[in-house]
């Protein structure tokens, strides 16, 4: 196996390590600006590092807007940054950001004059969009129709626990290349870890598909028996699986919170940085400020320290200070992230404003439940501020408001220690 892989970014050669995602290889090489934002041309870099946000989209071999955090590098691959017509690093259109400091209200822009309105239309049209149309026709494998009595979606702790109970009848899907989800991040030293994942997999007699992302759950119009029809993207192939029951264990997505500068390169999800390190061994500098709240903040800060980061400060955004004497904790609301990439975080501490220097900022609020697959099919979800999102509503057996859709783990508000028991309960109920 080659020791290094070379590919290009905007024509310049970049060298990465086999197994790197594009994002990992670029961050390793010191590239922090991956794209320019759609309206104000603000610099953007990868935030979630787990395929949920839209901040690391690149054109790869002529295909627009692919997530750099999910595509693995290949020899000779040509990556291009988008939405910087004169170069993404020194994009002149970033002037839009400064010219409209409070934002550009497109609804009411130049409405007074028909002529100016037409000018605005022409300008806006030319600036709109992100990627260019692909150059080539697509080559994809032929899609397939299948049936399955039970599909478990997500092979994190909850999904693995469910699959292990359900046994051979379950088809287990994992969107990452490696099953394990949150168990691989080292967040909870007492919780499931890589060894637990290996043993759970060993005890699961059914089929596991990795790199398999469930992209839609529909009424079943396949003509095959089943309550629903699940669309699954397996690399570049689409499977349509007629399912009797599903257990949704899709986990959560890291969330930014809206403070000035949160969208700048150098602000990352804490879990994203843990994943980047666990998966590719890459760190974004040496010193981090970690900001967030509650158990998630403490757990992520400790895990980041174990991953080799130095913690400049751990900032609790809620007034309650979680008990953790080993951490450099301070209470404070984030005021702004400074620098491009971010080199400091300003916080409103007790009596004063404090500026904390760092190499990057990690955000550690609870990931928001990924309810979308189930809720698009009618399963009810409701916002709970304490869970930082909208978990699916389930009964004690993990049944959602749609009788054949079950849920387990963070997606229904049972992350962390609740994940494994909720997976087992949902599987037992789904197999009744």
């Amino acid at each position, binding site marked *: 196996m080659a020791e290094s892989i070379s590919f290009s970014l905007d024509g310049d050669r970049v060298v990465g390590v086999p197994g790197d995602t594009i994002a990992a290889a670029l961050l390793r090489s010191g590239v922090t600006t991956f794209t320019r934002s759609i309206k104000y041309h603000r610099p953007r870099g990868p935030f979630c590092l787990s395929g949920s946000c839209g901040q690391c989209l690149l054109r790869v071999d002529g295909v627009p807007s692919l997530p750099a955090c999910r595509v693995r590098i290949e020899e000779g691959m040509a990556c291009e940054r988008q939405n910087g017509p004169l170069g993404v690093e020194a994009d002149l259109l970033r002037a839009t950001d400064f010219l409209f400091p409070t934002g550009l209200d497109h609804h009411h822009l130049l409405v007074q004059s028909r002529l100016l309105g037409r000018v*605005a239309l022409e300008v806006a049209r030319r600036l709109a969009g992100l990627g260019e*149309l692909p*150059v080539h026709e697509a080559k994809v494998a032929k*899609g397939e129709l299948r049936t399955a009595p039970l599909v478990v979606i997500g092979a994190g702790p909850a999904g693995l626990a469910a699959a292990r109970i359900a046994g051979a009848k379950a088809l287990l899907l994992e969107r990452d290349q490696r099953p394990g989800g949150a168990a691989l991040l080292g967040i909870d030293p007492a919780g499931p870890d890589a060894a637990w994942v290996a043993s759970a997999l060993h005890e699961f007699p059914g089929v596991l598909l990795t790199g398999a992302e469930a992209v839609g759950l529909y009424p079943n119009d*396949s003509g095959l028996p089943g309550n629903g*029809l699940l669309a699954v993207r397996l690399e570049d192939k*689409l499977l349509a699986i007629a399912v009797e029951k599903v257990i949704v264990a899709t986990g959560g997505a890291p969330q930014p919170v809206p403070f000035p500068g949160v969208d700048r390169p150098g602000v990352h999800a804490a879990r994203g940085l843990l994943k980047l390190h666990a998966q590719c061994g890459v760190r974004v500098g040496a010193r981090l400020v970690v900001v967030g709240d509650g158990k998630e903040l403490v757990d992520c800060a400790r895990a980041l320290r174990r991953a080799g980061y130095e913690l400049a400060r751990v900032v609790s955004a809620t007034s309650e200070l979680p008990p953790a004497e080993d951490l450099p904790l301070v209470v404070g609301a984030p005021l702004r992230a400074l620098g491009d990439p971010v080199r400091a975080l300003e916080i409103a501490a007790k009596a004063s404003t404090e500026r904390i220097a760092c190499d990057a900022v990690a955000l550690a609020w609870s990931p928001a439940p990924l309810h*979308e697959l189930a809720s698009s099919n009618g399963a009810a979800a409701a916002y709970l501020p304490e869970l*930082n999102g*909208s978990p699916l509503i389930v009964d004690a057996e993990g049944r959602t408001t749609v009788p054949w859709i079950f849920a387990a783990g963070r997606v229904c508000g049972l992350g962390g220690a609740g994940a494994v028991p909720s997976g087992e309960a949902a599987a037992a109920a789904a197999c009744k």
Partner: protein
Amino acid sequence: MIPMEKAIVCACEDVTVHDVDEAIARGLGDIESLKRYTGLGTGPCQGKSCLASALRLCAERAKAPRESLVPFRSRPPQSPTALAAYASLPELQPLPAVAPSAPRGPHPLMPRERLPERADVVILGGGIMGLALAWNLAAQGSQKILVLERGYLCEGASGRNGGGVRAQWGTPTLIELAKESIDFMGRFAQELGINVWLRKGGYLFLAEDEETVRRIEEGAAVQKRHGLSTRIISAEEAGELVPELDTRRFLAAAWHPEDGVVFPWPFLWGYADGARKRGAQIETFTRATGIEVESGRVRAVQTDRGRVACDRVVIAAGAWSPQVARLAGVELPNKPYRHEIVSSEPLKPFLGPLVSMLGSGLYFSQSMRGEIVGGMGDPKEPPGLNQTSSLRFLQRYSRALTELVPRTGNVKLLRQWAGCYDVTPDHSPVLGETPGAAGLLQMSGFVGHGFMMAPAVGRRMAAWMGGAKDDIFERFSVGRFAEGRLEQETFIIG
């Protein structure tokens, strides 16, 4: 000097906290309206990184009640997926329509204030028809006008259409209505203070066989007589207009450069604001539960916020109009049919016109935001009030689009949704008085193209209600079906 820094809520669409505050200040603080007004959650991540923040802002700043804090309706695909992947699936089978479950109790966002005890005109349906009518009626002064919408503005078909507007129709009336409406759209921003982004990129109707070629030739002849510049062009000429087309897949095309696309949502906010400024009252999240007709006259509308006595009731509820008319014991011949649409990832501008394949019913255009927005009629679609999305549609649409425009294969789809066409037996609208129920007025049956006719229909209906003579309210009355004088329109797509 450090410039003021934006606090971004939605990084995909560059939506700031300031934008959210603006929307809330305009009364658009419910999560579905917030999404549409600010654009948050409509980019590549489809809200996976902003919805929690948005709901927190709704709770804290818009003081939204707890039971209303649910995510905006999630739309498949859950992650951007290429057209070619869908196109490679085998064709799926249509399903019988599932009857929607009856709403349980009042909407969590229903305002608590009682409605006025009396109004002159109650308009049922806050879609573009009802709102355009309200704005025009309110200009006449004196009358008390009340518009009732059961959901948020944009919840029905007016908020779910693809934004295509064209004057290329097969009958003189529709050509006139559309021409006047498109003219008005061009000055909507000046009249109503909000941009609707009318972009006249033209409409290109492709004909794939000799019979369809004859159809577009006949259509072009009628349109020319009514002052349109429609031309029949060869496949090669069409290929010059849109170089990405595979010109081997059709024989000729009808081309009308004055047609175009708009951004549909601001029409509703603009008309609603304008009507309110003229004194009309528009109430969202409020349902009509009954229409009282006594001795052949409309007397009142019952709602979940009390009874409103009135002289006239206008039914402008789109595909729900038959249901609403039944509250008054009136049967309309309209039938609802689901129509599905999908939007792609935002691309840099490449496509000028809206392109439609007449035979298959495929159509697509590029929105101002750069997305390819399109749909495709389904001859096997069963009737029914069905707004669920299907995989069958994505497969058929993706196959048709990638065959006609092969370079779209690797374009990813972001979001699909469905709305309902309000279909009449002759594909012409239902307008005017209802036999046996004086004061009960119909304004429905626009078969998926009401949006592009509404500015003119609203103006003419208001004038007619004010006493002006206008024969379309006789010709298109609901009585025509019983009398057997149909008004056949043939230029329907989708």
